[in-house]
């Protein structure tokens, strides 16, 4: 059970639930476009105008069915999708100079209706007698396993950590979704018969050969590795965190107390950096500064996220890198140096006081994990290569999806890729009887 006094619970939803009346009014605005651009922008191609019309006509269960048929992770995607650059960004109302439809919040309205009330929409298909192992307990494996069970296969998810749900549970910004919402989704999805092996690490607790013996196919959805380190002096000082480790601590416990922090520095220019900075700021840290080695134009973080951060009071230092973390037994400052466009130091280093640092310069790859697979598997520096149509890897018994294959994208991409792999596995089992 999750603790109820987790740090993340101090942050309310930035996009709270719509009331029934709000949802109906917003749904009424939807134009029901032909060949709707919002659908084309959705990696899982949810029939958005249809589910919105279903909400409008007082059929929230039907709306949820439309959503989940396309995207098993529809409940979390409603909250965590960067809708501004996907469906909502393509809404034709943008061209009309009117607010685009609040698609994410309408989707949440529909999925909340069934997930919170425990209304089950799906069931396991007639048993095929086949079994598939899904490695990693995040969105990709969940989507894959859910689809597999619906197709009549047995699906077992191996998760080395404590919680199911992957980054949905321990990595999503709390103001987008709290951990219990992810767990509610996992529970709802798993009801149809997904089997969980929590706290079991494949390759260590269970050898790959054993997995291959027990299962007809294996889906790899293990995501990314631990936070990358900078290799800078003082990085092991208490107070210096990897960004995803910090976010995990905020979401699942109370090891970090933002109210005891006065000045925080986040190193990096991606969405994880912005998430960490916004979370610290919203949790009450007076001074939060993002330090990035290039200019704002080069940031990989979404522009709308950076604008939110700026509006919330996050400061930015461009074209600077840390050269040392300083402190006497505990962090109290970051020594930075300005860099030129080639990231070469220019000028004298300067000190920025900091009692917390989050390093968000990427996550490690799971090359070690992959190296243990019998017969090997093709990957590029840890990104598993898969077939575009089926999600199958170079190893005939293995499929892959999510961050492990795409190098780090959105939950909705992981959902699409997990489902794609499930279809691929199913087709292969149907066609070849599963003989490699």
């Amino acid at each position, binding site marked *: 059970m999750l603790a109820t006094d987790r740090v993340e619970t101090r942050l309310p939803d930035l996009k709270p639930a719509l009331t029934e009346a709000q949802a109906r009014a917003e*749904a*009424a605005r939807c134009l029901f476009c*032909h060949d709707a651009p919002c659908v084309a922008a959705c990696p899982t191609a949810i029939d958005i105008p249809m589910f919105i019309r279903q909400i409008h006509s007082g059929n929230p269960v039907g709306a949820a069915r439309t959503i989940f048929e396309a995207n098993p992770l529809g409940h979390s995607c409603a909250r965590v999708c960067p809708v501004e650059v996907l469906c909502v960004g393509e809404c034709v109302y943008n061209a009309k100079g009117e607010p685009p439809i609040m698609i994410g919040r309408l989707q949440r309205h529909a999925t909340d209706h069934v997930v919170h009330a425990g209304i089950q929409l799906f069931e396991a298909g007639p048993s095929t007698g086949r079994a598939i192992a899904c490695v990693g307990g995040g969105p990709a494996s969940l989507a894959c396993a859910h689809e597999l069970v619906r197709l009549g296969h047995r699906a077992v998810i191996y998760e080395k950590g404590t919680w199911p749900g992957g980054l949905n549970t321990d990595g999503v910004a709390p103001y987008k979704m709290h951990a219990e919402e992810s767990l509610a989704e996992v529970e709802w999805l798993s009801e149809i018969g997904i089997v969980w092996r929590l706290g079991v690490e494949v390759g260590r607790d269970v050898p790959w050969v054993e997995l291959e013996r027990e299962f007809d196919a294996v889906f790899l959805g293990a995501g990314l590795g631990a936070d990358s380190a900078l290799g800078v002096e003082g990085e092991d000082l208490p107070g210096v965190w990897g960004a995803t480790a910090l976010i995990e601590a905020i979401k699942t416990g109370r090891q970090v107390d933002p109210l005891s922090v006065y000045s925080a520095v986040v190193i990096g220019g991606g969405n994880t950096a912005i998430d960490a900075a916004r979370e610290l700021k919203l949790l009450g840290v007076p001074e939060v500064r993002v330090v990035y080695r290039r200019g704002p134009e080069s940031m990989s973080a979404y522009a709308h996220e950076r604008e939110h951060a700026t509006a919330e009071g996050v400061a930015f230092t461009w074209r600077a890198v840390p050269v040392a973390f300083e402190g006497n037994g505990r962090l109290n400052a970051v020594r930075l140096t300005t860099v030129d466009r080639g990231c070469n130091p220019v000028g004298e280093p300067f000190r920025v006081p900091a009692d917390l640092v989050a390093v968000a310069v990427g996550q490690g790859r799971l090359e070690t994990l992959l190296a243990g697979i019998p017969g090997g598997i093709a990957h590029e520096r840890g990104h598993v290569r898969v077939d575009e149509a089926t999600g199958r890897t170079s190893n005939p018994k293995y499929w892959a999806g999510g961050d492990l294959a795409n190098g780090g994208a959105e939950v909705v991409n992981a959902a699409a890729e997990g489902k794609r792999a499930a279809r691929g596995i199913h087709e292969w089992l149907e066609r070849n009887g599963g003989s490699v």
Partner: protein
Amino acid sequence: MRGGNPGNGAPRGNGGPRANGGPRPGRPVDLSVECGGIRSPNPFWLASGPPTNTAGQVMRAFDMGWGGAVWKTLGDPITNTASRYGAIDYQGRNVAGFNNIELITDRPLEVNLREIAEVKRRYPGHALVASLMVETRDDWRDIIRRTEDTGCDGFELNFGCPHGMCERGMGSAVGQEPRLLEEITGWAREFASIPVLVKLTPNITDILDPAMAAQRGGAHGVSLINTIKSVIAIDHDTFSPIPSVAGQGTSGGYCGPAVKPIALHMVTRLGKAEEFRLPVSAIGGIHTWEDALDFLLMGASSLQVCTAAMHYGFRIVQEMTRGLEEWMREKGYSRIEEFRGRALPNYEEWGDLDLNYRIVAEIDPVLCIGCQLCYAACEDGAHQCIALPAGTRVPRIKQDECVGCNLCQIVCPVEGCITMVEVERGLPKESWNDRVAAGTAGAGGRH
């Protein structure tokens, strides 16, 4: 599109050219009207119904700006049910259509008469009409004489109510039987010394039949339409019709914005019938000044409103009077009589419309937001005259195939994006009736 304000529920369609007078600030405008000998400071009367149940309501309404009121129908006091009302919501707005199974007044006649007299004494310049519904000739004589003593300005004979009362041989039971309607109207004329209006039910085949019966019976005018017989909806859990009375329901009378086009047709029908000469007090879905103007342009002498007042309260009349005044200033009219019935000459039977007139749709690619509703509508619901060129979301009208039906313009969510453009064909007007007369009518039928 009218009034430069197509987003407020005004119909889309090829309205044709409009004379533009331009705004005339400060020009005095007189809204006063006369209908069948009944005068009022403006054409807006509260129709007989729940809003005109008591003196307190009617006086408050007059203070708010209503020009007249038709008192809730007098007769033998009845017992009402709970519930009584049902409504249709549409696209997030409630009360697009409304129905009721409420009957006539449930208050003693002497109380109503005392209050009518009091209102008339305090508001001598406003139109106060008493709606009546009784059965026998003696009943009619008695109630007319007693009611006339209140000093009211006229009577409205309720031959329209389609629920409850008709089962007792009154209301629409009379309105649907022209001989009976004519006879009772004759009684009313015989006993009354003030104007008599006859309120008509739309639950008939041709509104002209009961209207002519009213004229033959000597009425001073007619009021229409009363409500349309309706079942609003079914409760999907209890399977009871709505409104539900202890799990059961019945047909009621439909009104509200949804019925306006039906009422406007019936008012037009009477306005075009040369043999019908009585003034018309128009009723049916009037919610804005634009609705009101439609009825005036089709010849109505006064207007009655009920559902809008039930939905928004009496204050709503101010939007109607101000809107009408503003339009009159813009057009340079100072009295309603100057434009009343102005649209009637432009109403023709289908057979007299010009078959050679041609318009085609045109899309403004700058305004287009790419929703492609026009494409879906034309492709699936009309004549397949819109194409989707590759590389853009802006559809293209196949103008040489476009039949000028207007559907794309009607469904387009962007004001002014799709316009209907006249195609000059250099052909004289030719109607179906012209073709019949010339013996060439086979070329393209009506359906």
